[in-house]
């Protein structure tokens, strides 16, 4: 892992907060909305600097999505902030009709996604949100891996006109994306080149994929690691180019394998270049209380699980 250094653990939601603060200073059309979770979403800095461009909605997520849609009429670029569960499942029809179908330039920014929310348990640990959002026509779906990438993505989506779902998390995790790395929506990042197996990972599992690649290297297996921060539109060219070399693939996501990244990759491969695939993700289950590390281990979402899946998929070639 010489190329990727953990510069210190930071939470991705703080990357969102930093990106939003940057936008507050650079883009006067950006407005922010929150449903009583300012601290959790790290929106304090934006609010302190731009109080007139912040809307505290209260605990009323449906109203928040509708107001955000309305704010676009008049040229504003609304960023909504709440937990991933309340950003998607709770307000699916509001997003579907008032944002996606209405072609509104709303950025739905969702923290505390997945199991790593931890002790709060399954009510808050949504593992279905990528699927929900990627099914909406026209919706861009992004799941960032670390602080720097989340900050860069937050800034980048303001320049894209259209609805975006930006998914990030709660815990402090390795921050390894270079601070100056450009963020291009829909453009996968080849973190490490390899020839035996492709690992396509998103969100918190990107760092785990890099650790897995190191473990595999010690066993003489050359893994290509792709950071697929944008799940929709999917960078099919990058995936197809990689499997043309490796002839097998492992997808890794902190999400249900039903409806997630892995299925998007499988659909691409099935129609264009079928190869053996293994899926790292939760399997048709809710989460539960526990520490993030305990949960990721119990549900098989860590480097060890990725390594095992890679060895298995290579045998299927």
């Amino acid at each position: 892992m010489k190329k990727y250094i953990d510069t210190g653990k930071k939470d991705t939601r703080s990357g969102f907060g930093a990106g939003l603060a940057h936008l507050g200073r650079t883009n006067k059309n950006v407005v922010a909305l929150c449903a009583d979770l300012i601290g959790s979403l790290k929106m304090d800095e934006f609010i302190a600097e731009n109080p007139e461009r912040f809307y505290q909605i209260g605990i009323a997520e449906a109203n928040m999505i509708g107001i955000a849609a309305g704010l676009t009429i008049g040229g504003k670029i609304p960023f909504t902030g709440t937990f991933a569960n309340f950003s998607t499942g709770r307000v699916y029809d509001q997003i579907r009709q008032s944002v996606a179908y209405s072609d509104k330039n709303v950025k739905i920014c969702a923290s505390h996604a997945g199991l790593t929310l931890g002790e709060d348990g399954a009510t808050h640990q949504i593992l279905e949100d990528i699927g929900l959002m990627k099914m909406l026509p026209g919706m861009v779906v992004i799941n960032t891996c670390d602080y720097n990438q989340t900050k860069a993505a937050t800034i980048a989506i303001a320049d894209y006109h259209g609805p975006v779902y930006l998914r990030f998390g709660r815990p402090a995790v390795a921050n390894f994306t270079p601070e100056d790395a450009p963020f291009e929506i829909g453009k996968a990042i080849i973190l490490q080149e390899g020839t035996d197996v492709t690992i396509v990972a998103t969100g918190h599992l990107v760092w785990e994929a890099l650790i897995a690649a190191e473990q595999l290297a010690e066993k003489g297996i050359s893994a290509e690691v792709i950071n697929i921060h944008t799940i929709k539109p999917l960078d099919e060219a990058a995936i197809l180019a990689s499997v043309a070399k490796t002839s097998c693939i492992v997808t890794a996501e902190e999400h249900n394998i039903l409806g997630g990244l892995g299925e998007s990759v499988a659909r691409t491969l099935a129609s264009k270049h079928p190869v053996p695939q293994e899926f790292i993700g939760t399997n048709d289950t809710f989460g539960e209380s526990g520490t993030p590390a305990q949960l990721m281990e119990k549900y098989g979402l860590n480097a060890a699980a990725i390594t095992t899946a890679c060895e298995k998929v290579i045998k299927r070639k």
Partner: protein
Amino acid sequence: MANITELNQLTTQVRRDILRMVHKVNSGHPGGSLGCAEFFVALYNEVMELKEGFDMDGKEEDLFFLSNGHISPVFYSVLARRGYFPVAELSTFRLINSRLQGHPTTHEGLPGIRMASGSLGQGMSVAIGAAQAKKLNNDSHLVYSLHGDGELQEGQNWEAIMYASAKKVDNLIATIDLNGQQIDGSTDHVLYMGDIAAKFKAFDWEVLSIEKGNDMSAIIEGLKKAKSISGQGKPVCVLMHTVMGNGVDFMMHTHAWHGKAPNDEQLANGLAQNPETLGDY
């Protein structure tokens, strides 16, 4: 001062449009559309300050959002006859490849539409957002919205109603179409909502009533009064008492024509009650 006779003539033509549109495709929602014909005609031809042409941002003009999107026939007719798109296009209502979808949408680029509606209860939040954008833009124009009475059973409305007064969204005039009917029967029968005026007042809104919601003069007077008390710290609610199916006797005072088209004979009957004034499309 409005020429009430001309506005009434336009309303009669709008009723003809509604009947002919839903009859042609044997689907759509004539009852609520007919009940709100006077409101739409007044709003778009006498009450709102509108720019020429259409752009999505709608800066420096009043905006309108239809929350109960199923009454699209009246919306489309009035928009077309106000010049937003060709009147002839009304003949494409609900047909394949039409911009006049069953429920209004921005998706097909129909001028005059700024938000999809159809799934109920979402329009007030959207109107609030647009109103707050106007405040940010130092645009003193108003945002109008229309909601069905049955639609108030959707909980999102009450999130929005609570928010609008708390945040002093006083450039919003939300009209409730009190026709007392919904799909399964009267609103009192399906889910009694009590005193709606008292509810809005309890949420700290200004509340006005238009008792004769199918009387052109009464609507204009009511909406202008609403306008006069906007901008004073509170959102304004207009409770507009209408008759579902107004202007077509066999469709009036019943929920039966909420979402049912007239047959050939019924169409002829309805049209005979509303003689052509400005020319059919």
